[in-house]
């Protein structure tokens, strides 16, 4: 390898890899995605189609979230990437390294310090503030897809605010199982108008979207859709008067590491003994508690 190439790989003063545009995407792509984000913010919960680009990451592994992050990130940002609550899963590490090398921005696992938090399937336990942006990776943006296979029909249903099919789906669930059995991807009505798939976050995280001070940006790279929840927007899970929405109940279990009883817990079955262990799904939060920080 030539010396000049090696020096390129070592990066520039700013820390970003030379030979690439800042944040990998070209400026026209970033502009398109920012425009689509603005539209999504203007119509909370509405899925805005966009021209999803090929990324150096397989579709279905966070290309949507990655494109949003790369379009909005600036040199002074601090990035946190989590995958189901963990900063250290392969997917999170790789996305964090990629963005870091393409921009030179600093990264952190500390939720409080991050300005942009890209996440897959969780919202951090530590309450976010209005200065932060949450970017959620979305596999299936269409909440009505479970009841209606045709995109043309689901778009018409959204346009006409026709959600009786989803209500019927919940009714049938109650009749068959005595309760609503949807775990993750619980359908929510945003701003009293559009039904939205909150991405596969557990029910535990759904109430935290309601009137949150944080802007939540959702993007499905494979399905080519962007949608958003602006700050202080009503997000209401669908529920009946006599069958209310409920978050997960861990039956009094506490985190084995930090002792928390007010967090979303992962159940881990010990292969040898067959016993279940419980630990916080949000690793950064768990470590803070273990260190005795007040979170």
């Amino acid at each position, binding site marked *: 390898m030539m010396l000049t190439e090696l020096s390129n790989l070592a990066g520039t003063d700013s820390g970003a890899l030379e030979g690439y545009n800042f944040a990998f995407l070209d400026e026209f792509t970033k502009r398109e995605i920012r425009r689509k984000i603005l539209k999504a913010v203007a119509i909370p919960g509405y899925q805005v189609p966009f021209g999803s680009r090929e990324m150096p990451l397989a579709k279905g592994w966070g290309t949507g979230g990655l494109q949003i992050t790369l379009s909005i990130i600036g040199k002074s940002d601090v990035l946190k990437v989590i995958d189901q609550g963990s900063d250290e899963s392969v997917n999170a590490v790789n996305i964090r390294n990629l963005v870091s090398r393409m921009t030179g921005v600093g990264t952190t696992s500390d939720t409080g310090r991050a300005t942009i938090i890209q996440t897959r399937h969780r919202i951090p336990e530590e309450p976010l503030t209005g200065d932060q942006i949450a970017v959620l990776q979305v596999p299936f943006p269409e909440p009505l897809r479970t009841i209606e296979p045709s995109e043309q029909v689901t778009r*018409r249903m959204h346009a*006409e*605010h*026709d959600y*009786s*099919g989803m*209500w*019927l789906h919940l*009714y*049938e669930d*109650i*009749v*068959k199982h005595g309760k609503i059995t949807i775990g993750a991807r619980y359908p929510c009505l945003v701003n009293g108008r559009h039904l939205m798939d909150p991405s596969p976050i557990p029910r535990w995280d759904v109430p935290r979207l309601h009137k949150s001070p944080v802007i939540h940006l959702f993007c499905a790279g494979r399905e080519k859709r962007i949608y958003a929840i602006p700050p202080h927007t009503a997000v209401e899970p669908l529920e*009946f*008067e*006599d*069958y209310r929405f409920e978050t997960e109940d861990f039956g009094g279990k506490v985190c084995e590491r930090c002792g928390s009883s007010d967090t979303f817990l992962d159940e881990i079955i010990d292969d040898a003994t067959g016993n279940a262990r419980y630990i916080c799904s949000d690793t950064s939060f768990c470590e803070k508690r273990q260190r005795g920080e007040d979170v």
Partner: protein
Amino acid sequence: MNPAPALEVNNLTKIYGSGCRKCIENTGPDHSRNVCPVCGSVVACADITFDVMPGEILGIVGESGSGKSTIVRCLHFDMEPTGGAAYLRCSGNDSGNENIFLLNSQRKRAVRNLHLGMVYQNPQMGLRLDVTAGGNIAEKLLAAGWQNVEKIRDRGGKLLKRTEIPLERMDEAPRNFSGGMQQRVQIAKALANDPDVLLLDELTTGLDVSVQARILDLIKEIRRSTNAAMILITHDLGVIKLLSERTIVLKDGRIVEMGLTDQILEDPQHEYTQLLVNSVL
């Protein structure tokens, strides 16, 4: 004082195809055809004007292809008419003085969910066969804004009881039901929102006579107990004779005769009606 009609239909026309200026004048019973010889479009129905009173059953008879089903499907917004107007004048309908065909699709859906009930000849069209019988009724109630499962089930149970479906089959899919039972579930669903206008499209066709008789009894009971205006589409003059006060005779998409059912059956004026009545008796 005469009460106001529940439903008024003026000059309803439905043409399949590109249509041309000659379509209407070149088709109809006088030409014995409904396909326009100039452009090849099918004139399913044209210039259909009638009204129905609250609590009245209006029969529409005619041979297959005469445009009977097209009329009710246009009224139920299953298809868009080519021309004409319809006014639904019932309490609680804020669009009473507007042509319902010109409402936007969201308001059309509201009219359909709150004021109309439809029973199709084929239960597959009116029911979701894989959703429970109770769920099928619930769909209509949910669309009308009901949000309490207990109340929905209570209402569903009452409707199923009224249509003689055993309550223990409420949570079973109509796919497992007999044809007659499916048809009764469909009627229960159509009645769910206490409709002002009930559209019945060949509801006994294809059922055996004893089942037919029970369904016709059910319709009679509904007429006694509600104030719904009903439009009954059939090719069976026996059903018309039993149920409807007034009857429209349709041929090649046009009304050829309209009047009291007794009069039409006893003293048919139009050539085609005479043929129809004589073929039965």
